[in-house]
C-alpha cells in the first residue's frame, strides 16, 4: 500500500523533509507538497539585501525546482486541516487526503497587530526586512538616508532568527561608516528583552559589541504604538523613542489556517509540538517542523535543518508501528554578522546556552562567540550549501544534528545561574 504523505509548506523544513522521505521510500510513498506560491527565498539573504550586498533575484528560486521530480508540488491556499477526516482542505474547494501530515508552514508577519505600524509602513518611514518586498523597499530608503535617527525594533518575541535585528544594527553601523556619514546617524536598538539577547553570556558579549560600535540600546520596551506621522515609538507604559527611519520586525504568528483548525495550534497559531519527537500533540499522524512549531528553540533554518533528521526517523517509525525517538535536543547554530567583514558564531540547544570556544571541535573549528573573518567567510559560503545539500536533505559532514560540548569553554554565567 502506498503511503500518502502531505506536507504543508515548501520552505526549508517542508522541502528537506519531502526530499528525505522521497529518498527513503522511493515509489512506496506518494508525497504532495502544497504552498501558496513558487518563490523559495533564501532568508539569510534578506539581511544583506537592504545594504545592497545582494540583488533580490539572487536569493529566490522556484520551490518546485528544489523538490525531487517525483514529488508533487501544488500551488494553493490551505483553508484548514480536518484532523478527524485526515485531510487538508484548500480554499479552491479541493482537498488532499493523507495518511501522514507534516506542517511546515513557517510564520506569518503581522504588522496589523501593532497600532499604527501598517500606516507608518504605508507612509514610508517604517520598514521591515523580513520579506523580499520589504527588504527591497528598505534598500531604496537606506540608499538615500545620510542623517537622522535609525531605530531597529523587534516588537515582540518570538521572531525568526532572533539575532537578525542585532546583525542589522551592526551592518547599519558599517554601512553608514563606509558612506562617510556615520557621525550624522544615530542607531538605536529598541528591544522587549532586558538586554541585547535572551541568554546571559551571549547577551553580555553582544551588549558590549553594541556599545563599542556606538549603538544605543533601549531595553524592556514593549511597543504599543507606532506613530509614523510624529516619528516615534510609544511603549505600553508610555515611554517614547523618536525615529526618522524605523526598521520594525513585526509580530509573528502561525499561518492563518492553523487558527481555523481546532486543536492544532496555540494562542499565537504555532503548532503544539512535542519538543523532542516533533509529533503534534493534537493527532498522532501529524508532525511539525521549523518555524511553524511552538518548540522552545530558535525559529531559524539551522534548528529546522537539525530537526529534519529526528522528523524523518520518527515518520518512518510511525509507519512501522514503532515507538518514536525523542532525539531532537533543541540544537541550532548561527552566524552573527557584525560588519566590517567579520562575524560571530553561536551554537546552543534547549539546555546549553551559547558559550565561547570553537565549533565543531576545539582543534579544528570556527571561533564561537568571538568576531572573526573566518566566520564571515563561512556565512557567505553557506548559500550554495543551502540549495545543494541542506534542501536536498543530504547530511553535511562535520555538522551533526545533535549538539556536542567538544570545543566549548565554560565561563561563569553573568547572572550566576546554572542552566
Amino acid at each position, binding site marked *: 500500500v502506498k503511503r500518502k504523505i502531505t506536507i504543508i509548506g515548501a520552505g526549508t523544513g517542508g522541502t528537506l523533509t519531502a526530499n528525505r522521505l522521497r529518498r527513503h521510500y522511493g515509489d512506496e510513498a506518494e508525497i504532495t507538497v502544497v504552498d501558496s506560491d513558487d518563490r523559495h527565498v533564501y532568508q539569510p539573504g534578506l539581511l544583506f539585501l537592504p545594504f545592497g550586498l545582494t540583488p533580490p533575484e539572487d536569493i529566490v528560486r522556484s520551490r518546485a525546482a528544489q523538490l525531487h521530480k517525483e514529488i508533487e508540488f501544488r500551488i494553493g491556499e490551505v483553508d484548514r486541516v480536518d484532523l478527524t477526516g485526515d485531510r487538508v482542505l484548500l480554499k479552491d474547494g479541493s482537498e488532499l487526503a493523507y495518511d501522514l501530515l507534516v506542517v511546515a508552514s513557517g510564520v506569518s508577519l503581522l504588522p496589523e*497587530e501593532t497600532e499604527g505600524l501598517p500606516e507608518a509602513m504605508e507612509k514610508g518611514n517604517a520598514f521591515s526586512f523580513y520579506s523580499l518586498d520589504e527588504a527591497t523597499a528598505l534598500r531604496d530608503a537606506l540608499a538615500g538616508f545620510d542623517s537622522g535617527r535609525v531605530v531597529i525594533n523587534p516588537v*515582540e*518575541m*518570538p521572531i525568526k532568527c*532572533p539575532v537578525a535585528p542585532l546583525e542589522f544594527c551592526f551592518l547599519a553601523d558599517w554601512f553608514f561608516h563606509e558612506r562617510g556619514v556615520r557621525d550624522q546617524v544615530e542607531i538605536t536598538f529598541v528591544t*522587549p*528583552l532586558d538586554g541585547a*539577547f*535572551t*541568554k546571559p553570556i551571549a547577551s553580555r558579549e553582544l551588549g558590549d559589541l553594541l556599545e563599542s560600535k556606538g549603538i544605543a540600546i533601549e531595553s*524592556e520596551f*514593549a511597543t*504599543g504604538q507606532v506613530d509614523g506621522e510624529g516619528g516615534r515609538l510609544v511603549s*505600553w*507604559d508610555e515611554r517614547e523613542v523618536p525615529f526618522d527611519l524605523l526598521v520594525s520586525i513585526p*509580530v509573528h504568528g502561525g499561518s492563518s489556517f492553523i487558527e481555523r483548525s481546532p486543536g492544532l495550534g*496555540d*494562542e*499565537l497559531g504555532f503548532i503544539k509540538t512535542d519538543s523532542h519527537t516533533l509529533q503534534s500533540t493534537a493527532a498522532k499522524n501529524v508532525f511539525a517542523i521549523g518555524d511553524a512549531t511552538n518548540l*522552545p*528553540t*530558535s525559529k531559524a533554518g539551522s534548528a529546522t535543518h537539525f530537526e529534519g533528521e529526528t522528523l524523518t526517523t520518527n515518520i518512518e517509525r510511525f509507519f512501522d508501528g514503532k515507538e518514536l525517538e525523542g532525539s531532537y535536543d533543541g540544537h*541550532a547554530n548561527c552566524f552573527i554578522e557584525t560588519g566590517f567583514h567579520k562575524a560571530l558564531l553561536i551554537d*546552543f540547544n534547549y539546555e546549553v*546556552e*551559547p558559550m565561547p570556544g570553537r565549533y565543531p571541535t576545539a582543534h579544528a573549528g570556527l571561533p564561537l562567540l568571538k568576531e572573526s573573518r573566518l566566520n564571515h567567510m563561512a556565512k557567505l559560503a553557506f548559500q550554495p550549501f543551502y540549495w545543494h545539500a541542506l534542501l536536498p536533505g543530504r547530511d553535511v559532514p562535520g555538522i551533526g544534528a545533535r549538539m556536542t560540548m567538544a570545543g566549548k569553554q565554560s565561563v561563569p554565567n553573568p*547572572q*550566576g545561574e546554572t542552566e
Partner: protein
Amino acid sequence: MSTVTYAGEPVEVDAEGFLEDPAQWNEQVGEQIAAENGIDELTDRHWMVVNYMRESYLENGTAPSIRTLGKASGVPIKELYALFPKGPAKLAAKVAGIPKPRGCI
C-alpha cells in the same frame, strides 16, 4: 536561592524573588508578593491574570508571554500594564508563584 517567609511558611525564592517551587504557593503568598512589589490590593482583574498564569504554566511548563496574556487571559495589554506596572508578564509570574518567563533564543 534563598528562603523567605510568606504567609507564615518558609518559601524558597531565586535571586530576583521568583518562587522556586510553584507548589509552595497559595493565595496568601500571592497577596504578600504583590504587596512587596507595590500592588496594595489584588482585584478580581488581577486574579484573572494570576490564575491564568498559573494554569498556563502548570499545563505547558512555560510562563505565557505578554502577547499570549493579552489574547488569552481576558485582560487587554493596556490594562495589564495598569494592573502590573512595568513588566506585566514578569510581575504577574512572580505573584503567581511560577518561575520567571524565559525568552527563547
